[in-house]
């Protein structure tokens, strides 16, 4: 069955966004990432304009992250103080990102910048996950490396001003650190339509040294509010949120996340992480090909008049 999307101005087989939502939701449930870094490029592949794909993905991440935050808050795994610092940076980053994409669109380079950013982020995350999952098999060596890296970063972080204690996480940091990290995620969320969890989770683990169970809840809390802001700004400024597409994605992703979480408890983590790393790297290679191989069409629709 086909549905007409009022903002994307195209008709799409509902099985595509629902199936895509299921797939990305499944990965979300399995790996604890938002899934936007996969969702947006795949939507673009299926003919959704890139700016609509990014903005609409932010909207569906609101739904995915609110259920996760709710679940973690119920068991006391959300560090609200850390979350609020991250949010302060996230709101500023969101504003910068939305204004940035407007300027890029006016210049006609938005697609290129989005794709280059994707290539870098997906390449880094994919390689990181691949290496990390291999290292976790050789656990002893892995722990030694972490310890070494952690100590250098910890010395630098302790030297920063405005040190404050985060009780729920049991760590002490400068308030500047989560604000800057939140800001970075906000910019990425606005430009790429991703929640930023795939970047935030490892940074919180390795840089902020927070316990893993608190990281997931706090990251989701921060992503939720950042994506609410980004969704509103994209709707208000760029008119690029397609509500119908968001609903179709939600149907799939919410169910997929539940199925993924259930299966995640039964399967081996290292196998799943390597599988995800391969998927992420495959998407990266696909975008690299797009940038380097001659396109079939040399014209595309302008961003606005």
């Amino acid at each position, binding site marked *: 069955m*086909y549905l007409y999307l009022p903002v994307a101005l195209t008709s799409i087989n509902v099985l595509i966004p629902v199936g895509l939502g299921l797939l990305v939701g499944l990965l979300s449930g399995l790996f604890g990432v938002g899934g936007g870094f996969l969702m947006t490029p795949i939507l673009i592949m299926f003919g959704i304009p890139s700016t609509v794909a990014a903005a609409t993905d932010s909207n569906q991440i609101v739904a995915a992250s609110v*259920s996760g935050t709710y679940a973690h808050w119920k068991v006391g795994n959300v560090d609200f103080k850390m979350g609020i610092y991250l949010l302060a940076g996230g709101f500023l980053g969101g504003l910068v990102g939305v204004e940035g994409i407007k300027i890029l669109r006016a210049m*006609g380079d938005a697609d290129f910048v989005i794709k280059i950013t994707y290539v870098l982020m997906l390449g880094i995350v994919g390689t990181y996950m691949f290496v990390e999952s291999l290292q976790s098999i050789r656990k002893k060596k892995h722990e030694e490396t972490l310890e070494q890296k952690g100590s250098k970063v910890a010395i630098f972080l302790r030297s920063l001003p405005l040190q404050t204690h985060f009780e729920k996480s049991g760590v002490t940091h400068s308030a500047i650190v989560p604000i800057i990290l939140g800001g970075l995620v906000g910019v990425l969320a606005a430009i790429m339509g991703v929640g930023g969890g795939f970047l935030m989770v490892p940074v919180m683990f390795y840089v902020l040294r927070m316990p893993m169970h608190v990281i997931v809840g706090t990251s989701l809390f921060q992503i939720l509010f950042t994506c609410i802001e980004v*969704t509103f700004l994209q709707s208000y400024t760029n008119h690029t*949120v397609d509500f119908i597409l968001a609903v179709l994605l939600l149907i799939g992703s919410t169910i997929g996340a539940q199925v993924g979480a259930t299966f995640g408890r039964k399967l081996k983590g290292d196998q799943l992480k390597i599988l995800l790393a391969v998927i992420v790297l495959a998407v990266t290679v696909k975008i690299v090909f797009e940038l380097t191989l001659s396109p079939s*069409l040399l*014209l595309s629709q*302008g*961003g606005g008049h």
Partner: protein
Amino acid sequence: MKLQNWVGKAFIIFQVAVMFLVVFFTGRASAQLTAKANHDHITVDFFYHGSTVSVRGVSDPDTDLIIKLTCDDDHQVLRKKGKVGGLLWMNVGELKIENVPNVYYIHSTKDVEDILSRDEINKYIIGYPALERHIKMNVQDEGEKTRWFNEFVKFRESSNLYATTTGKISLSEKDGVQNYYILTQWPYQAPPGHYTVTVYAVRDKKVIETATSSVLVEQVGMVKSFADMARNNAAAYGMISILAALGAGFGVGLVFRKNGGAH
């Protein structure tokens, strides 16, 4: 009175004689060109996935036919892709085109160049070469114009918004009148608006008669409401989108918790 009757009878005899001569020498009767589209109002609702539009009518026998389906001229701003640094394909600027329709379909019984003179082709803007001459483009020279016009046609054809076909118009003759019929796929990518179907009857390299019919494509119901709201009431639209996502997320979270799952 007698004189009037005599003149009347003479006129009728003259008309019959002319018709006899026409039929005798041409073997055919004449007919006024007509055009009728089966759908003059296409509504775009949630389940819209394009439509079909058929055009039928009658024409003079031994005329060729050209059917043009288009809309009013507009201006288009497109992004041009080019190779940067000899390695990466990226957007390299804007292509601005004036006097260009969003949708342009030409169907003809024979090749347009074979049945119509160049002057007539240009006068009625029939076919891609005539359209290229008609439009204006922000390029350096004619060579660049041709290059980017060809890219533009390729781009529009890929979205099913431009097409030219030859020989797809069905023709049949009955009672000395030529009936024609064509069925076309209406693309879902065609934006809402007013479209015109123009049928040209062609003989001896000239357009001898034209007939028109119109098609209105209009968003209706919830599709129209969403599109209007996204454009005209963006703040409320954004809030509704967020609230709906929050509601869905909480709903799923509650169901998830009841089922004993956890993130």
